[in-house]
């Protein structure tokens, strides 16, 4: 197999805000990303996803460990690494005072493209992300979803070998999110290597070949979404709602049913191979849930199992 385009080994990043206390926002992270692969970093906020993205993107240095991006150490070859990477940041960092077109054009200039190339690339990307009609609009007048698309377009001005996406669909409505997923899927099909940091299980599952589950800067588990789900979550989940304040009590009475139980404040999750049959067993025990739902397990269940808390809180 070809060498990985990203190789991280025991990556450590001290939290710059922590001051004297040795808090690590990334604590011993190791993973490889093959060319053309799409890797997800899945975890709730504050688990070191952004810090990892910034280290890969040669935007911030690392405190320890080894890191190679495109065969180069980002700490020593920042300009080289950044010139072949696209970074879509979590926070909107567009210049609100200039137009959509200018935002792209200006950024393209930084890569040493000629004025003509910048214009061509800008027009091409605006068309690709459905922003051509807004080309002359000032960014401050642009709706949120269009701004997000513009951020993605900006990350593509240099035809990057690796695209780093840091929570690219946060705050978006479902429709806009799905539209962006389509774009990412197309890029992935086109062979772009993608690293996606996200707190959304569905996003990681949808877009990633492999997922690294993160909690407090450490790896909980890694593998393909299917592998992770099969290994840690079982086949189906039965969601039971007994009404607020009743779930804990009901959870105690469900003991022994299914493979595993998770009692949450608003519902009880029973993991089992066959959800319907499990539901029948619940009813047989004389329990009367207000709401029931049988579904396939997903990466959120895996996270709940391994971290002992919900992915999105």
């Amino acid at each position, binding site marked *: 197999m070809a060498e990985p385009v990203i190789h991280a080994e025991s990556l450590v990043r001290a939290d710059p805000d922590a001051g004297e206390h040795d808090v690590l926002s990334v604590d011993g992270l190791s993973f490889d990303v093959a060319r053309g692969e799409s890797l997800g970093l899945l975890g709730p906020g504050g688990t070191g996803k952004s810090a990892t993205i910034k280290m890969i993107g040669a935007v911030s240095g690392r405190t320890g460990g080894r890191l190679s991006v495109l065969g180069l150490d980002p700490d020593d070859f920042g300009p080289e690494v950044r010139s072949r990477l696209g*970074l879509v940041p979590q926070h909107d960092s567009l210049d609100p005072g200039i137009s959509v077109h200018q935002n792209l054009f200006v950024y393209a200039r*930084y*890569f040493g493209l000629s004025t003509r190339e910048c214009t061509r690339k800008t027009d091409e990307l605006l068309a690709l992300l459905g922003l051509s009609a807004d080309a002359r609009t000032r960014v401050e007048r642009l709706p949120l979803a269009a701004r997000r698309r513009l951020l993605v377009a900006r990350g593509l001005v240099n035809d990057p070998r690796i695209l780093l996406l840091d929570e690219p669909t946060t705050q978006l409505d479902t429709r806009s999110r799905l539209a962006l997923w389509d774009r990412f899927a197309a890029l992935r099909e086109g062979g772009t290597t993608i690293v996606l940091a996200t707190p959304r299980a569905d996003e990681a599952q949808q877009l990633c070949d492999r997922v690294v589950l993160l909690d407090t800067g450490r790896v909980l588990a890694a593998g393909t979404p299917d592998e992770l789900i099969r290994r840690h979550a079982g086949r189906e989940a039965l969601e039971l709602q007994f009404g607020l304040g009743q779930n804990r009590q009901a959870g105690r009475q469900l003991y022994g049913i299914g493979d595993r139980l998770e009692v949450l404040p608003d519902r009880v999750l029973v993991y089992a191979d066959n959800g319907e049959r499990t539901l029948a067993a619940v009813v047989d025990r004389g329990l009367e849930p207000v709401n029931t739902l049988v579904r396939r397990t997903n990466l959120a269940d895996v996270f709940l199992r391994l971290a002992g808390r919900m992915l999105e809180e």
Partner: protein
Amino acid sequence: MISRDASATPADDDSLDALRAEARRWARKPRRRGFWYATEDMLRANRTYGSALLIAAFAQPILYLLGLVLGLATLIPQRIEDAGASVSYVTFVAPALLVTAALAVAAEEFASPVLAGFTQRQSFSVLATSPLSPGQIANGLILAAIIRMTVVTVAFYAIVWAIGAVPAPATGWIGIPAAVVGALTLGFPLMGFASSLTEDDGRFALVQRVVFIPLVFFSGTFYPLSALPGWLTWVGWLSPVWHASELARVASYGEGEDRLATLVHIVFIALFAVIGYVLARRAFLRRLDDA
């Protein structure tokens, strides 16, 4: 590791060596000219408000000059003894106003645009994700300010020269770099200060009123330093504005003052500028790292 369907990977050479070589090729231009991209960005971004700013920076000393020539100078018929020469009041005041013009640009350029780059425009954190190095971003910002200062001082100098207030045009132009470097000695600390702020809560205006304007007055701009009481002249000696003004004057008069005094002016403003640059750059890079 799971790799997707082989047909999806591009057909070109995908060895790490090839990717590394490609990255080196792409980074070559930004490594060489990156500071200029940052300069371009600062000049472009500040174009709209920047032209107003340039006019203001330019108009202020012109209006001063006009006021002084038409008003004050008629009240001061005697010649001014300064920097080892005896000159008319207008000739005396013009080189110092050249420094003031550069200073007015520095007071603007190293304040709001720096803060805005970190906050509202976020241009610095965006630049940090580009191939540019943090040092190039700092240098680009400084170069943009130098360009603006040069434009204003050249224009101002041309007017002073046209009204015949430069006795020695052969050396008079040296006042332009003296003014620019002199302005940088105050611009750099301001840049460091602006890099430490998260919002402009009126502190730039405070710096302008309490530091810059009084400094201009106490630096022998409108009257020779010797006119001040002895205990106040030290402000002038320590002020890079005074040293820059004196240097511009010597260049404009083309005579007087011993070489040693001129050398002291040059060393003083150069030293201030270099130390200021190092500290301002450090503060800027630290802020950029946090962004």
